[in-house]
């Protein structure tokens, strides 16, 4: 009865330079992922530096047989950002909505995807989005398995594929204020693009030197990398159709291949979980949002 789960790659939340971005998507096109969301999610100021990478990325990915969508920004405030959002819908591609205000620009009848930064917590919201044309929804990372199970069921009823945050530092907050700039005693308007110095975000530790969060411009992420590697069966049984993998600067191809192998049943999940410790920044993993007490918990061996 259960459909197989596949993999979706999230838009890169970090600020990498043009060449790195191009290389990343070239390499990604050769991995066993089913679909990719490209575009700038976090900060519109980064866009002029990297937007030239996207047409080529889309072309390469589509040629390789991947479904591709373009993401909106996660927090749209400026006039220029609103215009960019409206223009996205004219590109002839699927748009992934990461800020609800984008719905105002949605042409009647055009299908869309919904990203994990949109608050889809319940049946009512999911049904409403489905009625507007949502085809896929990636649930917010903080949802527990009970909610995921119920929403996957409703998704199946109304024809919406449900995704779960499968791998990557968890996006915990977005702000109008840039913390990278603030750490350099600058304001956002004069940030000098310092977030580009930290390709996986900048560590924010507790006063007891405990690894805790990372700053990524206006976004705050968990320091630990969320991984659903130990819950693939649980999620498949719940009716989830895809795991979403969020880019990191190192080992990402290997990571995509590892999850694909686990989903295909050709690789043992525990074995890959052990390997993941070597592949993620500082070797820290978490999966507590789904089944633990808090998001930072990890169900596997410490």
């Amino acid at each position, binding site marked *: 009865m259960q459909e197989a789960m596949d993999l979706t790659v999230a838009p890169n939340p970090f600020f990498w330079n043009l060449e790195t971005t191009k290389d990343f998507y070239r390499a990604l096109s050769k991995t066993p992922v089913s679909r990719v969301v490209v575009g700038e999610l976090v900060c519109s100021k980064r866009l002029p530096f990297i937007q030239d990478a996207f047409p080529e990325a889309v072309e390469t990915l589509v040629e390789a047989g991947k479904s591709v969508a373009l993401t909106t920004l996660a927090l749209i405030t400026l006039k220029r950002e609103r215009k960019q959002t409206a223009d996205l819908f004219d590109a002839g591609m699927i748009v992934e909505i990461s800020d*609800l205000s984008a719905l105002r620009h949605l042409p009647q009848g055009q299908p869309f995807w919904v990203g994990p930064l949109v608050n889809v917590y319940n*049946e*009512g919201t999911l049904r409403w989005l489905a009625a507007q044309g949502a085809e896929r929804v990636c649930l917010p990372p903080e949802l527990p398995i009970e909610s995921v199970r119920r929403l996957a069921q409703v998704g199946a009823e109304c024809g919406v594929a449900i995704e779960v945050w499968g791998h990557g530092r968890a996006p915990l907050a977005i702000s109008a204020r840039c913390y990278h700039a603030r*750490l350099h005693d600058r304001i956002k308007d004069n940030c000098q693009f310092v977030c580009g110095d930290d390709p996986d975000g900048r560590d*924010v530790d507790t*006063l007891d030197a405990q690894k805790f969060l990372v700053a990524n411009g206006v976004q*705050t992420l968990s320091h630990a990398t969320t991984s659903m590697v130990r819950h693939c069966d649980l999620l498949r049984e719940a009716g989830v159709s895809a795991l979403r993998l969020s880019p990191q600067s190192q080992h990402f191809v290997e990571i995509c291949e590892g999850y694909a192998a686990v989903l295909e049943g050709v690789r043992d999940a525990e074995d890959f979980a052990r390997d993941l410790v070597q592949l993620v920044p500082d070797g820290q993993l978490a999966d507590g*949002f789904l089944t633990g007490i808090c998001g930072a918990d990890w169900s596997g061996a410490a």
Partner: protein
Amino acid sequence: MELVCPAGTPAALRTAVKAGAHTIYCGFADETNARNFPGLNFSRKELGEAIVFAHAHGSKVLVAINTFPRAGGEDIWHRAISDAGSLGADAVILADLGLLAYTAEHHPELRRHLSVQAAAANPDAINFYAEAFDVRRVVLPRVLTVAEIKAINAEIDVETEVFVFGGLCVMAEGRCSLSSYATGRSPNMNGVCSPASHVSYSEEEGDLVARLGGYTIHRTEKERSAPYPTLCKGCFTSREQTGHVFEDPTSLDATRLIPDLAKAGVTALKIEGRQRSRAYVEKVVRAFRGAVEAEAQGRPMPEGLLATLSEGQAVTTGAYAKVWR
């Protein structure tokens, strides 16, 4: 301008009415509202009596049902809507898409305000909620400058309400799971942020040390003002720097911006603090009613009366000034 004031208990609501609140907002004592704290909020009976009291004194009551309903538990939120309506609430304050859709469909006559938890930060978002669910007023997120608020008001057809005093979220509201990551309890799902149940205080080498879910977030020296143990206002280390990476322990006081906010087309001014005592409610409401009257008569704004009631005993105008970003 309309002054919208907090009440966490029936006594605080009566206090707010007597101190000059045009409107009071409050919530039910459960997970349906974003201040689901121990000992706080209203039973159905208490809310009914409070609404009668407020209406008798010419004040309005808004009911915040502004968390995101739990999948499988939506009926709790639906009941809250229906009860708020039948008890005579003047409006409900909502954040969730599904709940807005439900209310527009099943209780079309019940006035709908968009909660700050929906973080509608641009005219497209506001017009979307207005068109889709006939929302009549939007509480603007605390991420906008006065100039941006003015520009927004020029493009929309609904009322705007802005925060002028109290605790300040630095993250886009309703889109933050910091608390959930550290404690498992979240503003969106449980109506709590950095909950007291997960806070521990200890004295270490003369400092007051606050931990949340085991993470140390403050060490305050003896004579310094103590902050709330809120994650986004915690003290952290990033490489060689130690400090308040996200925001200093401070709270908002936009008294002196009231005339500008009036010119920017703002309808209502909101005071944060449903979790505070009736002593706070009285002092803040009285001061702001005075400021609102002064604005109406073109008199200068009163200055700096409320710093001791504020976290960090310091105040900021927050995002209303562009340098905040």
